[in-house]
């Protein structure tokens, strides 16, 4: 037997549930999962890995680069999160922690006349007006919606396809 240098797979999973903190963190009001939102981004935008926050005010004012239109609320919609993150070892040195929203993200009966091509997922619970911490940005082909519904269906929640994955190899 010998020891094997590795990142603990459970560590990655517990990063996703707020157990570890190497710096200055936040005071959590409860052990409940945070609430996440999905905001639609204009195709003309330049959001990327350096986009740290959703900078609008949820429910009242959109951020620069976010869609607007009839039936769309600033900040987008809350994401259904009924399935907690999972952490799974794939070998003695590798593992994956992953999470996927448990339902489609739906924007019902909207008119979004300016093309959009991405959604930003961000943390509503740990944010404040103008600064809600971003999680990820997911792109797709450019769309407009006219008096209709826009639906984003999630990939399967597996080690290889989950929407968000932390992985060692």
């Amino acid at each position, binding site marked *: 037997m010998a020891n094997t*240098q*590795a*990142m603990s797979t459970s560590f*990655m999973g517990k990063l996703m549930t707020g157990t570890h903190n190497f710096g200055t963190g936040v005071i959590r009001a409860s052990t409940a999962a945070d609430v996440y939102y999905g905001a639609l981004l204009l195709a003309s935008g330049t959001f990327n890995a350096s986009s740290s926050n959703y900078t609008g005010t949820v429910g009242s004012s959109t951020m620069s680069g976010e869609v607007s239109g009839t039936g769309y609320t600033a900040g987008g919609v809350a994401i259904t999160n009924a399935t907690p993150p999972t952490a799974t070892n794939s070998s003695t040195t590798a593992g994956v922690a*992953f999470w996927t929203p448990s339902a489609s993200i739906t924007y019902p*009966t909207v*008119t979004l006349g300016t093309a959009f091509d991405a959604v930003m997922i961000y943390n509503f619970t740990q944010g404040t007006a103008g600064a809600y911490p971003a999680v*990820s*940005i*997911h*792109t*797709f*082909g450019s*769309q*407009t*919606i*006219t*008096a*209709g*519904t*826009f*639906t*984003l*269906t*999630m*990939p399967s929640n597996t080690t*290889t*396809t*989950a*929407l*968000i*994955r*932390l*992985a*060692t*190899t």
Partner: protein
Amino acid sequence: MALVTTTKGEMDDSLLEKKEGSVDNDNEYTTWVEYWLDGELVHRSAHVQLKQSVMLGAEAASFN
């Protein structure tokens, strides 16, 4: 016969021209449907099925 939400209110789909399409690539499978009335777009819906995740790599450093 079915009712469709349009820019002019609920309309019977038999009065409208329907157009549909899809996109399938490594990133998404998207379907869309449009309804037109006398050359005017009065309804468009889209459904995007995401296929890919975003991944963050993690590594434990060695002392040597």
